[in-house]
């Protein structure tokens, strides 16, 4: 009995320690400058100013809106994921600086059981609550009904009641902020096709089976094949819905990416949350071992600025999902009194998605070609698929 008890304790302790370790590394990253780097990304990566509607408040003194509070509810992992959550934080920080508002950040516990609680906690003290991630969708619908005087926005969920025709917002105070990820992925697909020497590229998805990451895959493959239909694209996912570990498993991301590089794919695009960090590690190690130049393509944030500096040379470009722009604009809309319930789609035409050129690994000629595709997508000549062929 005693021996088995010890073994059991060891098992439980290791589970707990793993959880502690995950959380811990996240917060260390935050303090080591990830968050401060991210807003700079915003400026550096977009050549044009984000399509913000006229901002009357930008010149005003930064304390004109000190009575306004913005509450951010992160997805599991919180600040310091070098990707999705950090991008939201960057938008909130920018809004805080420009509008002089109060911003507070919270994240749910490890199993996400207290999403509704943290939303209510934010609603108690905020005028606008932005929930980062579609896993908040149902909880936001519930909490928003209890708090009609607070505005809510959910990243990555349309927050529409699709039973109605036409679809109606799930609440008068709820906005859904979604992105045309397939359009941004198309552009980095073009970048991959222009840079591959082996005529074979890879796609590393975080979690398959719930439709979101397939949008990235579909756009990427379409972009690659728009340049050269003969290029082979190998696609693989880390986990399958409902297992969401694929977004937080850099070790498994590294393993799959390494196998892709070994198999001759010289550019891999990871749409896998923090697992993508493993891909850049794999690229670096493959370069060191074989001397061949292989690349990784980042996602959500400009990962050149967010990955470990030792591997940033492998970041060819990043598909930018401008969560920061969405958070910023949603905040501005509430301050200006122009908040609209329902779905807002951030696509190429409003720079809601895009690609980064930090590191100057894309040549001017390549950028010109990518821009040509971009113009065609915006004017509707090219319609990017959202489901893989």
């Amino acid at each position: 009995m005693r021996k088995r008890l010890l073994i059991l304790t060891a098992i439980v302790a290791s589970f707990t320690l793993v959880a502690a370790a995950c959380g811990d590394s996240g917060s260390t990253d935050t303090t080591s400058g990830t968050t401060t780097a991210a807003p700079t990304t915003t400026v550096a990566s977009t050549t044009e100013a984000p399509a913000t509607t006229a901002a009357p408040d930008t010149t005003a003194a930064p304390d004109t809106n000190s009575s306004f509070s913005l509450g951010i509810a992160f997805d599991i992992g919180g600040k310091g994921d070098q990707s999705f959550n950090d991008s939201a934080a960057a938008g909130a920080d920018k809004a805080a600086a420009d509008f002089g508002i109060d911003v507070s950040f919270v994240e749910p516990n490890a199993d996400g059981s207290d999403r509704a609680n943290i939303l209510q906690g934010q609603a108690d003290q905020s005028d606008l609550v932005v929930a980062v991630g579609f896993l908040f969708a149902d909880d936001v619908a519930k909490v928003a009904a209890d708090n009609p005087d607070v505005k809510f926005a959910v990243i990555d969920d349309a927050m529409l009641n699709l039973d109605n025709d036409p679809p109606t917002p799930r609440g008068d105070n709820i906005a859904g902020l979604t992105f045309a990820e397939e359009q941004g992925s198309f552009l980095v697909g073009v970048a991959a096709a222009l840079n591959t020497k082996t005529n074979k590229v890879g796609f590393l998805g975080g979690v398959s089976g719930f439709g979101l990451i397939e949008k990235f895959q579909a756009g990427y493959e379409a972009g690659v094949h728009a340049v050269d239909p003969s290029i082979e694209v190998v696609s693989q996912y880390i986990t399958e819905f409902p297992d969401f570990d694929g977004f937080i498993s850099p070790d498994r991301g590294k393993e799959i990416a390494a196998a892709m590089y070994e198999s001759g794919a010289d550019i891999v695009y990871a749409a896998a949350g923090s697992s993508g960090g493993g891909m850049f590690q794999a690229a670096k190690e493959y370069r060191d071992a074989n001397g061949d130049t292989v690349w990784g393509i980042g996602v959500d944030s400009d990962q050149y600025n967010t990955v470990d500096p030792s591997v940033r040379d492998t970041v060819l470009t990043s598909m930018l999902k401008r969560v920061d722009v969405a958070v910023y604009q949603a905040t501005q809309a509430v301050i200006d009194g122009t908040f609209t319930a329902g779905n807002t789609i951030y696509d190429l035409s409003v720079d809601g998605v895009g690609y980064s050129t930090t590191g100057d690994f894309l040549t001017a000629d390549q950028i010109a070609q990518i821009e040509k595709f971009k113009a065609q997508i915006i004017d509707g000549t090219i319609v990017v698929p959202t489901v893989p062929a």
Partner: protein
Amino acid sequence: MNNPTLRRIALALAAPALAVIVAVVVSSIVLIISGSNPIDAYHDMFTNALKLETSIDILNRATPFYISGVAAAIGFRMNLFNIGVEGQYLLAAFFASVVGGAVNLPPVLHVTLVLLVAMAVGASWSGLAGVLKVTRGVNEVISTIMLNFIATGGIIAGLIVVWQDNTGQVNSGTTPLPKSGRMPDLNSWVEVFTRDIGKGRHLTGVLLLAIAVGVAYHLFINRSRMGYEFRASGYNPFAARAGGIAPKKMVLSAMVLSGAIAGLVGMVEVLSDNYRYDQSFVRGLGFQGIAVALLGRNKPAGIAVAALLFGFLDASRGPLQASGSASTEIVVIMQATILLAAVVAYEVVSRARQKNEASTAAALLAGSQS
């Protein structure tokens, strides 16, 4: 301290007190190293816990912890380590949601049906591990861990795409339970004694179920013949066997009972929170239950204290983030150190108790001889 009864009571209280002191000391050291003021952090945690809304949060959180703890404890009492509560409750919640969302029954019947389905699914899944153990001698730790993966990665992943409610939402899941299948919250009961509960908080009705589970567990393990046989087999399987207790039957029934209770762990979510199985369904409660059962020494009341303690620590994350007085990881660190310290402390105390009993017996023996 010469009175043996007093010494026994002191020893019984020593272990949990020691564990909490060690955890507070370790956490304080961690807080100081990470540049936070421990006094501020503990102050925030306690002032928050005294709020009515936080009490609701703590109870909502402790409810599944408690049921999960009891499920694990039933096995532990028999010396069986059911690591599979995790898979059992997820699978049970999934099937219960599917069935609950598909039928339309009068309110009480509907909830009863959902509960029965959940218990049946949980019991069959753990029963599988029991059958493997008694017929093939497969260690239940191994089989239940593997069955966890088969449940979540195999069965649920495979079937949810077939049975999901096609509303086009990104957060897809099963069809929500109709009104008749939902358990009402207990807010109105609480508000009789207190002020009105702030908006957005609902005390889960499943709390009553958890209390019922606790009472049933106490009666079963301490008052029933089968419970006695369970404990006897756990203390000494060979003696129990010699005493006429069929070991295979015991293993199987312990696994089945443990799984049936495990099936109820997800009911907070299904009956009173989300009303369906979707992508945000709470996972990890099965492992929390093991920790809670260990901390509570497999006793009905002990598990309740442990569940409330873990619930309190978890509910502290919000105010710690809001005030910024400490990093929320301190909560995980505290849970882990309390658990480890408790196991060590119980071990130390149990040795002391054995020594105490030995010397008492020796004294009695010496007394009777003289």
